[in-house]
């Protein structure tokens, strides 16, 4: 299975993951500071900053776009419960 990597800047840990993994599946296991509310892409609690590799994430859904807009999210923000790593390297930090 193709691999990708996610680096959580706030705790200095890089995790290699199978392509298609959602950030939520990794960040909690590794103890990063990204926190979750509804876990369904509605509340915006898990907004995180993509420091690098945004192009290696699946495009945000219509719902995620809307929630980011409602929360006045900066351009580099994504929801960790929705964002899916497709390939390459992604670097994130809590929003």
């Amino acid at each position, binding site marked *: 299975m193709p691999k990708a*990597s996610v680096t959580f800047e*706030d*705790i*200095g*840990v*890089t*995790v*290699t*993951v*199978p392509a298609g*993994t959602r950030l939520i*599946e*990794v960040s*909690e*296991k*590794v*103890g*990063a*500071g990204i*926190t979750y509310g509804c876990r369904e892409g509605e509340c915006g609690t898990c907004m995180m900053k993509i420091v690098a590799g945004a192009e290696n994430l699946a495009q945000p859904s219509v719902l995620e776009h809307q929630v980011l807009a*409602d*929360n*006045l999210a900066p351009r580099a923000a994504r929801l960790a419960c929705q964002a899916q790593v497709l390939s390459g390297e992604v670097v994130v930090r*809590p929003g």
Partner: protein
Amino acid sequence: MSHPSVVSPGKPVALASGVHWIGALDPSMRRFDIILNTANGTTYNAYAVRGAHGVAVIDTVKIEFADEFFARLEAVCRYDEIRVIVLNHLEPDHSGALPELMRRAPNAKLVLSQRAPAILKALVRELGTEPECTPVGDGDVVELGGRTLAFVHTPYLHWPDTQCTWLEDEGMLFSGDVFGCHFCDDRLWNDAVGDFRFSFDYYYQHIMRPFRAFVLEALDKLEGLAPRVILPAHGPLLRTSPREYMARYRRLATPELGSGGDEKTLLVFYVSAYGNTARMARAVAEGAEQVRGLRVSLFDLQMSDVAQFVDLIEEADGMVFGSPTLNADAVKPVWDLLSSLTLVAVKGKFGAAIGSYGWSGEAVGLIEDRMRGLKMRVPLKGLKVKLNPTEDDLERCRGLGRELGAHITGTARRRVVDIAELA
């Protein structure tokens, strides 16, 4: 000098030319929002501001007090004169009468902060239509004819939507919950009511304290306005020495240990039945003390009040909790402290858990889950030891202390792991 009541049934209270209090008194309220005791009730302060071209209503009241609010409002203006309804904060104690006000004043424009529309939508579902509203931020104004309302974005005081409204010609700041308190006195003005200092501090400690970084940001904006009068959404109206209340907020919100330069702090808390978890906690502290720039403190949780530890945690950079496992759970003193941390900002602080156990050792995992729930960072897997820790176990505890200390001081080495290695 005694001061008479200024509040009469159905009558607004004039605060300045064209500015009225149209709120409600709730003297029998004893517990507010589940978490707050109120020794003598509260008030829901709403206001009306008249300009040459119409009236602005600023906030409403809790739904049970809507009749009082509408009676006072009707004594100030006709509904078709209301041009704007300003919502400084959408919590139901301030927006309870909003749906009915929108029905009675259908031409009024709703003005609220940029974070508020999503909350508004959920609050006025009974209207059956999505309300039209005008989100505003710093620098936005509403002209009422001869006088102007300006808006100050003050988010998270204490909801995402909170803002303040500034009436410049009168030097009046409509502050929402900021500078408010639960204190009911029908003399209304701060120089006429009873002594409400404890209520003011108590309200800050329970409502604003978790957001103190936002409090300090807001004060930077609000102090510059130098208001002549502060008109909060609860409690006395602050016309005498309004700056003193701002200064009090600044004192309460400023970190006390902030002058320590780059030194970081780690608190190690433990509870121990037979001394095993205590030995582990001491070993963690020993390891952490080896980290340069880290000040480590060790506490037996059973030997002090939770409130004192909450104060320490507010200033700390990291915490370790040590708990034995009793009947598949962490012990009560640990939960008492962990359940008290919603009063302070702990988001982003570092945490770890350790503990000795007899059968199964669930306490460590449960504490880790709670710390994550509090939005803390938990970068290291906790350590649990069956009954008596060996010297190897204690060395692992020292290692955990060293590693956690390195995270806290920003000197942790970067790690690369495969997801399969994570539990």
